[in-house]
């Protein structure tokens, strides 16, 4: 229990939690305690705050969701792919190092440079749309990259490893292709064809990379691995 109620403190705490947890509203409630018998001595007033996490979907309804409109969803997805591109840029050097086939290595190196350019384009789209450029966690790309790393760690033969790296890279490309396709459709729907045309450049690069990887796998790498 807390003695007295320092309202400015609780107001500030609520504001901080709303920012840290990206919530429109955090509920903090207080009720005055009346001793049932006698009078509590100050020393016996143990100060207790109860913190409640809510488990049910119904309970989650107490909290306002951040995504209310298609525009919010567009910005959220833009932040999702922004995070994803950053994770890909972090992981590509490892893939370049692991690749044995010269053309595959070169392909990954080219794509790393492209990925850095795509991040810059995304920052341009954020700016055009008047929102802050920041990422949101994307468990999907984290999962794809984690699995790629685990599988690569289990492959001993270098030719088979190249085939595994192509498969992983294509999984990444396909994820990006679906995200960019959606973002372009939403941008056009929202009347932001200017944003859509910048995003289209990223989509075109992802599709071209996927196609190159496909050709590499079918014409050479898979045969060497077999």
């Amino acid at each position, binding site marked *: 229990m807390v*003695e007295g109620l320092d309202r400015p403190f609780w107001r500030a705490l609520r504001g901080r939690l709303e920012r840290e*947890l990206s919530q429109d509203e955090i509920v903090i409630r207080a009720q005055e305690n009346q001793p049932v018998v006698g009078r509590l001595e100050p020393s016996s007033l143990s100060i207790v705050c109860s*913190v409640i996490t809510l488990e049910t979907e119904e309970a989650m309804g*107490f909290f306002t969701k*951040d995504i209310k409109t298609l525009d919010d969803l567009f910005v959220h997805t833009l932040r999702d792919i922004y995070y994803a591109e950053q994770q890909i840029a972090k992981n590509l050097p490892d893939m370049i190092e692991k690749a044995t086939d010269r053309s595959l290595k070169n392909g990954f190196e080219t794509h790393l440079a492209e990925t850095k350019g795509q991040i810059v384009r995304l920052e341009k789209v954020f700016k055009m749309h008047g929102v802050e450029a920041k990422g949101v*966690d994307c468990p999907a790309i984290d999962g794809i990259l984690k699995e790629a790393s685990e599988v690569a760690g289990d492959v001993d033969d270098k030719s088979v490893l190249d085939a595994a790296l192509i498969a992983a890279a294509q999984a990444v490309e396909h994820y990006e292709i679906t995200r960019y396709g959606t973002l372009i459709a939403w941008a056009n729907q929202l009347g932001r064809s200017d944003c859509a045309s910048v995003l289209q450049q990223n989509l075109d690069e992802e599709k071209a990379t996927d196609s190159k990887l496909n050709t590499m796998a079918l014409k050479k790498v898979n045969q060497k691995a077999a």
Partner: protein
Amino acid sequence: MSAPSHLVQILVPKETGNGTPVSKEWFDSFLKELTEKFGGATSFVRAPG
């Protein structure tokens, strides 16, 4: 006469507004902060009623 005591409840969501789960580390650190400030804090994973 001392000021009346209050039971304060903070309803912490399981996920942030971005859909990211609130991490155990964040929660533990928040609980520690309250414990240090008020001398004690109790957490419930479901509302006690």
